Every structure is written in structure tokens, then in C-alpha cells.
């Protein structure tokens, strides 16, 4: 399916990452936004509040982030593509209903422009310490998808990818940007509408009599309906059967939760998205994402100049984690150097996959500002020792 030209601002623009996220949503066909203001994500909401009505879309400022996430899910079942945007404290409040979206298999997108935490932390300064919260933040067992843009251009692109993945896999998809990327202004090229491919909602073609709301297809994903089309469905956060009705047994739990997990895990190869820079001959590979991946570039260049074969594996999609790729590289290289703005989150995921096949080093940072490339360079030197 092609994008609707109404939402696509084709051309060259100078936009910050937040505004680019808003344009990505418009291009992706998002027509419902509910949110609560929070720095450094508010510019997304501001742009949406101006741009959405123009094309018949709906913006609503809710009373808090629990309500925002709830309205986003409600809108999806009313037939809209929907999203919200927030940062740390709001992300914590959204966790309850992100779990419900996973349970109800509701396509929707949540953008988190990460700031320094914990708690109120550093509202106007960057962080990357919500990565594990993105993965595990709501209670219970489920899988989500999370993407990490590293430029305004990529904010635009990744938000479209997020919508497509959320439709395809019927999961809430998280865009884990950071304050630097959200607030930096760069050139953003928006293509023509017919060059933007969208994954359409998986509406069923079955009649109401044949249709079962949670009966999965071969790829483990069920087909969707919306209110008012004659299906009179029931959806619930309780463990449910294929009809959608609550069933309080371990067998029903096993069947449902296993599928919620496997629909992502078994399709991980198809979902994974990384960028590799000079990894073919590398002895040391920097694993990074978001703004940190850009700060690492000068360190890699300096090392290369000195004859150290350094490269980068950048996570465009952090969850599901590119396990196979990391394992494969670990067998060939001397070390992974993980650069992230926290005290070790994706780092432990790398360690888990490497299983001792190569060294692993972490270059941590508490957030508030980016790494000093010199510290990354030093870690590369340390890695080849």
C-alpha cells in the first residue's frame, strides 16, 4: 500500500528530530494522536496539533500518560492508526497500557524521546537508560519491537517503519529516540507519497460468523476488525481464548502468552534491522545506537588511522535484539565495545549473545551529555590489547 499524499510533505526540509517524527507519523497514515506534554518530546505534539487537523486527523491532549496510552488503544479499535509521544516519567506511566496493547494485540506507536533519569532526572538533556524498560517495562511476559533513530532523517524513516511493524505484527512498537536526536536540526528529505510503502491493517475478509478475533494465521498473527463493522467483538486484558473471551486456566495462558512471545521471536530474522560500518575486516566492533552511534564515529576513524581495524554495528532496531548477527561477529572479532548512555543495558544483551567468544567492554555514561569520543577511542585500544 502507498502513502496517502495528503499526509506527505514531499521535499527537502530542515527539521529537528521531534518534528521529523511528526512528519513520519503523518506519512505513515497516523491520524490519531493522544499525548501529555513532556520535555524533550513536546515538539512532536505541538507539530501534530497543528498538522493533523489540516488532513482530517485528530489530536487530543489527555489528562495524563495513562489516559494518553488508553486513548491510543481505543482509537485503534475505532479504526485509526494512532500514536503517542513521551519521555521518561511519562513512559513509566504508559507501561500499564503498553502491556494491555500487547495483550490485545493492538497496533500503535509510542515515541520516547529519552532524557536523563531516574525520576525527573534531566528533563532537557539526553539519556539512553530506558532501553530495558522498553523491553520489560510492563508486567508479565510479552514481546515488543523498539527502534532507535540516530538523526532527524532517520526519525522520519523509523516512525514509518514503526507503524509498518506494528500493523504487520500487531504489537505496540516503541521508538526510542533521545534528546540529542530529538532536538538536533538537520536536512530531512521526504520522498513522494508513492515512494513510501505502508503495511495495511490486517483487516479480516471473513464474515462475522466465521471470524475469530484471536485465531492466528500461519505467522502466528490474528486478523483484526474495528468497531461498527458488524463483528461485535470482545477484547480484554484478561487471558482469553481465540474468541476473545476470558478463560482462567493455565492451558489458555500457555497458548496465548506463548504466541504473544513467539510471534516476535520466531519472526526476529525478518524484523531485525542493523547498520554495519566497516565490520568485514574489523577486529573491534562498536555496538551502539541513537546519538551514541554518531559520537563513536570519530573514535573509529582515529583508530583506523592508526591501523586498528575498528567498525560499528548500529542497532536501528534494538528489540528484538540481533542475536544471530552478534554471535556471528563474536566468532570473528577480538572485542565488542558497547557505547550507550547508561551503566549497562544493551551491554548485557551483547554479553549474553557473545557467550565468551570475544571480549566485551562497556563505555558507560550517566546521561546529560554525550560520550567523549576520546573515551571510546581508549576503550578500542584497551580492547585490542
Amino acid at each position, binding site marked *: 500500500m502507498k502513502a496517502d499524499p495528503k499526509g506527505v510533505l514531499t521535499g527537502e526540509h530542515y527539521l529537528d528530530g521531534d518534528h521529523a517524527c511528526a512528519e513520519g507519523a503523518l506519512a505513515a497514515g497516523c491520524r490519531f494522536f493522544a499525548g501529555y506534554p513532556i520535555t524533550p518530546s513536546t515538539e512532536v505534539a505541538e507539530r501534530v496539533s497543528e498538522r493533523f487537523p489540516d488532513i482530517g486527523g485528530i489530536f487530543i491532549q489527555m489528562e495524563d500518560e495513562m489516559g494518553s496510552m488508553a486513548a491510543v*488503544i481505543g482509537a485503534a479499535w475505532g479504526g485509526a492508526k494512532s500514536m503517542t509521544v513521551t519521555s521518561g516519567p511519562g513512559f513509566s506511566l504508559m507501561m500499564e497500557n503498553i502491556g494491555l496493547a500487547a495483550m490485545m494485540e493492538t497496533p500503535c506507536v509510542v515515541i520516547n524521546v529519552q532524557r536523563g533519569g531516574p525520576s525527573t532526572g534531566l528533563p532537557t538533556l539526553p539519556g539512553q537508560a530506558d532501553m530495558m524498560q522498553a523491553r520489560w517495562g510492563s508486567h508479565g511476559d510479552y514481546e515488543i519491537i523498539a527502534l532507535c533513530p540516530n538523526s532527524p532523517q532517520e526519525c522520519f524513516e523509523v516512525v514509518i517503519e514503526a507503524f509498518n511493524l506494528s500493523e504487520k505484527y500487531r504489537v505496540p512498537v516503541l521508538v526510542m529516540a533521545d534528546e540529542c536526536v530529538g532536538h538536533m536540526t538537520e536536512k530531512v528529505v521526504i520522498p513522494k507519497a508513492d515512494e513510501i510503502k505502508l503495511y495495511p491493517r490486517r483487516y479480516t475478509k471473513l464474515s462475522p460468523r466465521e471470524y475469530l478475533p484471536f485465531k492466528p494465521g500461519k505467522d502466528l498473527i490474528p486478523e483484526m476488525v474495528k468497531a461498527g463493522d458488524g463483528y461485535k467483538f470482545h477484547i480484554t486484558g*484478561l487471558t482469553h481464548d481465540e474468541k476473545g473471551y476470558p478463560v482462567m486456566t493455565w492451558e489458555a495462558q500457555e497458548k496465548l502468552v506463548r504466541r504473544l512471545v513467539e510471534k516476535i521471536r520466531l519472526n526476529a530474522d525478518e524484523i531485525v534491522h542493523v547498520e554495519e560500518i566497516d565490520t568485514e575486516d574489523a577486529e573491534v566492533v562498536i555496538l551502539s545506537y541513537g546519538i551514541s552511534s554518531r559520537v563513536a564515529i570519530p573514535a573509529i576513524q582515529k583508530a583506523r588511522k592508526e591501523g586498528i581495524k575498528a567498525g560499528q554495528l548500529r542497532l536501528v532496531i534494538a528489540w528484538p535484539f540481533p542475536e544471530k548477527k552478534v554471535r556471528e561477529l563474536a566468532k570473528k572479532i577480538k572485542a565488542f565495545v558497547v557505547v550507550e548512555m547508561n551503566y549497562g543495558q544493551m551491554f548485557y544483551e551483547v554479553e549474553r549473545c557473545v557467550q565468551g567468544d570475544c571480549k566485551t567492554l562497556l563505555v558507560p555514561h550517566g546521561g546529560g551529555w554525550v560520550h567523549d569520543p576520546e573515551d571510546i577511542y581508549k576503550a578500542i585500544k584497551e580492547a585490542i590489547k
Partner: protein
Amino acid sequence: MELIPKVTHHYLRTKKKFPNVWCAGCGIGIVMGAIIRAIDKLKLSRDEVVMVSGIGCSSRMPVYVDFNTLHTTHGRPLAFATGVKLAKPSLKVIVITGDGDALAIGGNHFIHACRRNIDLTCILVNNQTYGMTGGQFSPSTPFMKIGTTAPYGNRERAFDISKLAIASGAPFVARGTAYHVVQLEKLVEQATLKKGFSLVEVISHCPTLYGRLNKEGDAVEMLKWQRGHAIPISAAGKVPPEKLRDKFLTGVLWDIEFPEYCEEYDKVIAEAQRRD
């Protein structure tokens, strides 16, 4: 199922989800019956109705009725309903909630839904307790009544739910009881017809927990209490003030006009497009 009138039967997921979870004598089923009869009278198709609930005994209602039904998270049904209604304003969106659901964990959503004035119909089953979790005191438990977490008597003051809704800006507020079913049916009908946010507070009873803990008798006794304590608003002027003190008013308590949000948002869209 033969005991259920034909009209009601038509709207129930009888083959799928019965028997229900409610205790014998509970007021929630009476409320469900009144809602169904009101919808039937209004000749709404089952498919244009969306019923959204939170969590609680009362919030279990949607699974039994054959509409589009969303059973969501504790306290948040009004926020979910906001999304559904805005995404597809042609739908009739009815929210079922309890006193704990709407006023404790969902208090913020409640007052803002009143104020925002989206065309939603909110039926709040006020049984003065947290039924589902075992009879703890709720924001509408009267002063000094017993709850399983207030074994020495509840020392907090109860919300006057209808007054709270009026003060929060709801344009239509009514109160009924599980006892006065005919009136309740009419109130639900009026609320559903109202353009804008409407609340029907239903004074109901939980004989299993609240009734037992407070020695209020069985379901019949509790229904009799409702009969004895409800004063129709039309008669309030004729009752001496001292006799009103321990009573509550029923009927349409508040009915004003205020611009409805979805219609206002259409104007926003028109304005944005005009400026281009």
C-alpha cells in the same frame, strides 16, 4: 435462560459466556437489564454500540452483552472510550464503571471526561465498595461504614459522585437506583440521547461484601433501603430539610447545553483547512 425476557435475551452472549461471575442478588445484573432495555427502546443496532469498561465486578458487564465490547484497565475506561469515540464519532459509546474504578484510580480521567464533554454515556455502578477485590472501602463508602480494610469504620468522607460530576462540568447528570428499574431505564435512555458527556450514577448494592460487613441484610433488604432513601428531585422541595439529611436525590439532577467536543473538533479541522 427462559427466565430472561426475550428483549434482553437478544442482546446477551447467552451461548458464549454464561453463567456470569456475579453473586446471587447483586445489583449489577439489574443495571445491565436496564441498559439493554434502554438501547432496545432507542432502536440502536447492536453493532453501533460500543461498551467500554474498566476493572471490577461492574466492569465485567461488557463480556455478556452482544455489542462491540472493550474490557480495559482499572480506572481508565473513559480514556479508552475517548479514543474510540474520536476515531469513529458515529458509534454510541457507553462506559461501565464502578465507584472505585471511576473515582479512585480513575478519578482524574473522570473529572476530565466531564469537563471535556465528549459524547459518551457513563453508567457508574455505585455499590459503595470494592466488590471484586473483597469489600475494601472505596471513595464512596460512607463515613464509619465497615470495609475489609476499614475494620474499625471508614474515617474518610465519601464523594458525592453526582455533585462531583456537575462541578467538573458534565452537562447531564442523573442518579437512579437498582430498585427503581423503570426510572433507571428512562435515565439511561435520556443519557444516551444527550449530546455530550452524560453520567448516570446508579446506587446499587453488594450484598455479599458490603451488605454482610455492615449488617445491612440480604439483597431484598438492601433494595428496600434504596426505596426508603431515594427522594425524586421533583419532590425534594416538598420534603422538610431534616428529612432530606440521610437521603439522596434521584432523577435528572442536571441538564445543560455545552458544545460537544467532537463537533468542536470538526470546527478545528475546518479552521485548519481554511487557513491553508
